[in-house]
């Protein structure tokens, strides 16, 4: 399969192109939020309570063009909050996918190539972990960290805790996929040719086997990015994720949810819509990639 | 043409074209192929991978894999056109009038059903027989293809048979409704040499006893020499040479056939080097102008580069080569003869 085949299948699917455009747009806007955002919503110095609870401009004449999507009870601009929040969600999502991927690929390679007892131990751990939902594993890891360190300290390292927690809860899928591919690849003759030369197993794993198992890993990573973002949002919504001083999309939804009953719907709905759009776009990309790289479906 | 063609042909293929639309343009995989098969005749279709031999077979049994499609020409079975039939109609003909045997016996059988059930089902699809009568016929078929203990083996599952025995079951399955034509695509390729010989002998015997015509598609010239009455040699989607098997094997007319025969190591005289045809068959996207074989041909002339040769009478065969008479019948062609 050549790269041009992938490009062709990309071009011929309008939905995929739309998803890619949406993803790129969200990512670019999110990462440029310090420049693009009209306000810095979490700098207390810039906030004024008199701006509090303004509705979006297009639903009510009370709206103010300074705050196109309205403000929350503290007078923070919703649009700016969403931009910063999306950036944080993306950072957590990408970082935890990288953690899961690194761990999963390493363990999968070792398991598949070495086999025997190493394989048995790694795969049994994976089996056990798979019986718990990922969110439960993440909750557990976060809970353990919370009991070990102080609340204040926890807020400082909350980002790392949540990345680690989500990363650790998603490695199994990578490990299993990589192991499966390695079992196929290691019996191929090019690997035997490398063994005849007398290369060490480590060199063969990294230089020969690894490049040939990256395809499926890439697919899982894309699909998992959406999942990781959702998991972070869920954890933050439950209040065990990122603190409200540093809100991600999930935190924003939680904060808005608290005042939803009083009719200030925009505080929670706009972050929710952004989250849904981001995850949907990323998942559509993942689905396309899976089909494009799967020779059986072409 | 062979003696067998005194009878009206059972299968007529005329100017068959099979093409594959791809995003880089339409590829012509089978290009203007014509041949006949008489009742009781075995026609070997031989060629290297990518020559279009299997596609020709699949087109005849109506099982071209999409996006491949018949783009032109006619296929007639017993005088009736079958290339333009609807899928359901073709399905009835396949099985009843045409049997198919594929390379891998394991994938031709359903692993979940006993071979008896598969045989009886096929028999009852095409013939109106009672359960008991169909079972009797199934046992007879298994006996006929040489499966020992057929009464007991009929209730066994495909995995309980060895490779050779499985291929025999597949042949029995193809024979269920007493077809007039069997299309066998590489029926021996997946089998060990000793089993190959057994399956070839079986095919020959069945063909003789039932006057069934066989189209035998294979890359193995040895199988063709053993089995076929006539042989069509395919190259890059076209028939390069067609004729009685003995003439094609011993007195090839087309330079490609000559090269092909010379490149097979033979017992008897040991040569230091085998005759080799340099290069490889062109991909479908890069078929050269004129004769498709010209870049690899040692005797091509100016005409071969621009004009495509049709099949023309050459000795007792027909060959698609402007140079078929360059060296006289049966003589090895050499560069000097052409230059002279």
């Amino acid at each position: 399969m050549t790269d041009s085949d992938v490009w062709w299948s990309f071009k011929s699917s309008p939905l995929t192109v739309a998803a890619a455009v949406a993803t790129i747009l969200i990512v670019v806007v999110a990462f440029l939020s310090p420049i693009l955002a009209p306000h810095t919503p979490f700098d207390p110095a810039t906030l004024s309570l008199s701006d509090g609870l303004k509705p979006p401009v297009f639903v009510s004449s009370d709206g103010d063009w300074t705050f196109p999507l309205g403000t929350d009870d503290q007078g923070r601009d919703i649009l700016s909050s969403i931009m910063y929040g999306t950036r944080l969600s993306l950072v957590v999502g990408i970082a935890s996918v990288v953690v899961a991927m690194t761990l999963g690929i390493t363990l999968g390679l070792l398991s598949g190539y070495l086999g025997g007892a190493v394989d048995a131990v790694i795969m049994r751990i994976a089996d056990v972990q798979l019986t718990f939902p990922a969110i439960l594993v993440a909750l557990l890891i976060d809970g353990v960290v919370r009991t070990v360190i102080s609340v204040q300290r926890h807020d400082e390292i909350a980002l790392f805790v949540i990345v680690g927690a989500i990363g650790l809860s998603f490695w199994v899928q990578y490990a299993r996929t990589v192991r499966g591919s390695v079992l196929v690849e290691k019996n191929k003759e090019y690997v035997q040719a490398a063994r005849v030369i007398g290369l060490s197993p480590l060199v063969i794993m990294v230089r020969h086997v690894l490049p040939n198992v990256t395809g499926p890993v890439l697919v899982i990573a894309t699909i998992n990015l959406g999942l990781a973002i959702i998991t972070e949002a869920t954890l933050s919504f439950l209040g065990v994720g990122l603190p409200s001083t540093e809100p991600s999309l999930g935190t924003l939804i939680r904060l808005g949810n608290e005042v939803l009953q009083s009719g200030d719907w925009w505080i929670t709905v706009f972050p929710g819509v952004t989250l849904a759009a981001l995850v949907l776009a990323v998942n559509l990309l993942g689905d396309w990639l899976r089909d494009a790289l799967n020779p059986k479906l072409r | 043409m062979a003696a067998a063609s005194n009878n009206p042909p059972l299968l007529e293929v005329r100017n068959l074209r099979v093409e594959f639309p791809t995003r880089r343009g339409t590829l012509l995989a089978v290009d203007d192929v014509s041949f006949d098969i008489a009742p009781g005749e075995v026609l070997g279709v031989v060629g290297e991978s990518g020559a279009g031999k299997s596609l020709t077979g699949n087109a005849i049994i109506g099982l071209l894999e999409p996006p491949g499609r018949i783009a032109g020409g006619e296929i007639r079975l017993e005088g009736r056109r079958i290339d333009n039939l609807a899928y359901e109609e073709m399905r009835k003909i396949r099985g009843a009038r045409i049997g198919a045997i594929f390379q891998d016996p394991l994938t031709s059988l359903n692993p979940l059903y006993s071979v008896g059930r598969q045989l009886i089902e096929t028999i009852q699809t095409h013939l109106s027989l009672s359960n008991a009568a169909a079972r009797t016929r199934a046992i007879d078929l298994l006996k006929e293809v040489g499966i020992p203990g057929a009464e007991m083996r009929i209730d066994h599952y495909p995995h309980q048979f060895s490779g050779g025995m499985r291929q025999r079951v597949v042949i029995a399955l193809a024979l269920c409704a007493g077809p007039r034509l069997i299309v066998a695509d590489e029926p021996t390729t997946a089998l060990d040499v000793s089993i190959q010989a057994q399956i070839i002998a079986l095919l020959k015997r069945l063909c003789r006893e039932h006057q069934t015509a066989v189209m035998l598609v294979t890359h193995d010239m040895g199988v063709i020499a053993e089995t076929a009455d006539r042989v069509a040699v395919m190259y890059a989607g076209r028939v390069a040479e067609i004729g009685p098997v003995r003439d094609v094997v011993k007195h090839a007319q087309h330079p490609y056939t000559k090269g092909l025969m010379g490149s097979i190591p033979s017992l008897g005289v040991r040569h230091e080097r085998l005759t080799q045809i340099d290069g490889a068959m062109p991909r479908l996207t890069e078929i050269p102008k004129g004769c498709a074989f010209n870049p690899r041909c040692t005797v091509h002339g100016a005409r071969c580069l621009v004009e495509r040769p049709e099949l023309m009478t050459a000795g007792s065969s027909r060959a698609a080569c402007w140079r078929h008479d360059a060296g006289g019948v049966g003589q090895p062609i050499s560069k000097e003869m052409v230059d002279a």
Partner: protein
Amino acid sequence: MPDGSQNHFVQLEGLKRYFDVSPPWLVRALEGKPRQIVQAVDGIDIEIAKGETFSLVGESGCGKSTVARLVVGLFPPTDGRIEFDGNDMASRRSRAETASLKRRMQMIFQDPYASLNPRWRVFDIIAEPIRAFGLSKDRADLEKQVGDLLRQVRLTPADGRKYPHEFSGGQRQRISIARALASQPEFLVCDEPTSALDVSVQAQILNLMVDLQRRLQLTYLFISHNLAVVYHISTRVGVMYLGRLVEVAPTETLFRRPKHPYTRMLLDTIPDLDMTGRQRSPVAGEVPSPINPPSGCTFHPRCPFANERCKTERPQALPIEGGTVACHAIEEGRLPVEDRTY
């Protein structure tokens, strides 16, 4: 060529390799199933002289590919010795000494599509052994060596920049050969190197192998199921059946005066391409499972000449007409040796 006094280049002595194909321990314990051992190679003695082509033929499952993999050290033998140019391959030695032995023997594989790493450029594929054994002085020297190797197999140095998928099956097999030659080996193990190729391409590869052997004084262990190819390329031939050697003989002797009934049966399966109408006896039966091979001579259930002794006693290799044959019927003179013509 093979006479006992001479020191052989490659020597296999009582070589055995068993594979455990039992179901997992738990399944065995629960269902009371016994261990299942495949005797893939069951006691083989072969001597290969320098510069010759020794071929192993047999049907699938006879263990010929396992022998190839044992010889190059892809897995260790269960029992027996492999000696290469006087060195016992099993004895412990330093890294450098092991590398210097490994450098001298290489392997060519069957499947031209699986034997080249699809993610590597051809240059890197061929350069790998040179780098691994430290055989080049600098980058320029490496490029020169790879270029020469590509030319040697009738490709061009520019082909080094391409990926394997840009080549046809025959060209890939040339790349595979170039890689095998990169470490300047003396001994090449060729496992069905042409069986995945079309005949016209097969002829190109066989011719190339013959040319290279002459030019580089290579010794080949050639594994194949195709008797015509074996006849064409070999100096001596060993016929394997169910993990054992049934007959070894110089090529002409094996094809003209075959002794073992299995050899005769195999020769009968060669298609008659010359259309001479040669008479051939029908072949019966199939190769039994190597998990529970028949007792005595493993060929006895298919052998028309088998008697009680064949069912119980394993025949030993007897020297005869420059080769060896393991058959009671030949030993007892029950089976006359006849000349064959083709």
